[in-house]
């Protein structure tokens, strides 16, 4: 079954954890954009949600850091953060081990990945799920791209990984939805938290909408770090979704820098109908 949904969204913990400190007008507009994304996701009638995240040392550490990892369990738990800090209660999220194994096997035809039968979700997955599957009733396949502990996988490998996910999804009988989560420019959890390079973000998002491979891969990590902070490394998840969309054009439905959330907040989708 061809991929039924492809989109990206932000996942910063402040989105839920510091909601009360944000300008209500812009916060509510962002939440409304998440509501629209949820409606679009539900309208695609997915059987499973593959969520491509950039986790933050919740499961993977520099003792054995995979560039790409995919979950393979019947259920997952999260958030690893204190519920009061994140603003999301601890829950059990459904998975599907057999479906994951088939997806992983398919991805392995094109990309080398690690798999994990245990996975504690952190805000990188929990914040998007809080908005997109708030009843936690859709099976999830978690995917991680190492965006935290250099050396990081090159952008062209993130692109190839996206292509591998698309091929795997299309080969499955289930209706597969794909959501990438991450920041664009941001300096999370550092003294510069709250800094956002809006011009850089808008340029990146324009490239993402055009879905031009060369444009999207035309970054070095040093440039990204200088202009977009270590949080900018998470564009790998956005790039993977672009590749999975196979040339489809995208639409940014919402973008607004929200310093108290420590990131330029975005929701965006690709039109897969073409």
């Amino acid at each position, binding site marked *: 079954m061809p991929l039924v949904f492809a989109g990206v969204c932000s996942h910063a913990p402040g989105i839920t954890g510091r909601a009360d400190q944000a300008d209500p007008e812009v916060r509510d507009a962002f939440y409304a954009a998440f509501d629209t994304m949820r409606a679009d996701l539900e309208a695609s009638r997915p059987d499973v949600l593959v969520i491509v995240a950039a986790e933050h040392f919740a499961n993977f550490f520099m003792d054995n850091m995979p560039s790409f990892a995919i979950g393979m369990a019947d259920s997952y738990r999260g958030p690893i953060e204190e519920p009061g800090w994140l603003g999301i209660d601890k829950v059990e999220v459904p998975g599907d081990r057999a479906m994951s194994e088939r997806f992983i096997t398919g991805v392995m035809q094109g990309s080398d990945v690690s798999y994990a039968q245990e996975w504690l979700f952190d805000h990188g997955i929990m914040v998007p799920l809080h908005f997109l599957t708030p009843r936690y009733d859709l099976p999830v396949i978690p995917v991680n791209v190492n965006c935290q502990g250099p050396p990081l996988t090159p952008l062209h490998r993130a692109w190839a990984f996206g292509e591998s996910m698309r091929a795997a999804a299309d080969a499955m009988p289930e209706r597969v939805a794909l959501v990438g989560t991450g920041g664009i420019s941001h300096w999370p959890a550092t003294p510069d938290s709250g*800094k956002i390079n809006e011009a850089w973000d808008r340029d990146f998002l324009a490239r993402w909408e055009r879905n031009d491979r060369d444009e999207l891969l035309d970054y070095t990590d040093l440039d990204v770090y200088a202009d977009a902070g270590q949080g900018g490394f998470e564009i790998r998840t956005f790039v993977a979704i672009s590749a999975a969309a196979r040339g489809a054009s995208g639409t940014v439905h919402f973008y607004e820098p929200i310093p108290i959330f420590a990131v330029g907040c975005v929701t965006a989708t690709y039109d897969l109908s073409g």
Partner: protein
Amino acid sequence: MSLYAVQKFLYQLNRSEQAQQAYLSDRTAALAGFDLTDEEIRALVEPDIGLLFHLGVNGQILMHFAAFHHIEWADYLQLMRDGIALYGPVREGVYAMTGYEGVDAHAASLGQHSAAVGGGPSTSEENN
């Protein structure tokens, strides 16, 4: 200096209630088995958030340690700024890739004013 060991201790603390209980019971004893310098032990036991950031601990690990110690978000950010002011630029790790010398210098490198981007210490409402 052993940034790897500091971060590994914090990584395990962040994800294990058992490790958290051990740390709460005897902070120094909880560090046994990790190859740490006296400076690193002091930073973890006090705790000295500013020193840990100066040593190079990733904020994605450090912020949970601060929350574990009931340090409010704004205070956590300020403690890191104070650490840079007191101890100097980040020594090692991802933040040292291009040399991290403080909020104002960092903002200037982007051609931005700290207050305009919510990064300056005088804009506490924006920089949380």
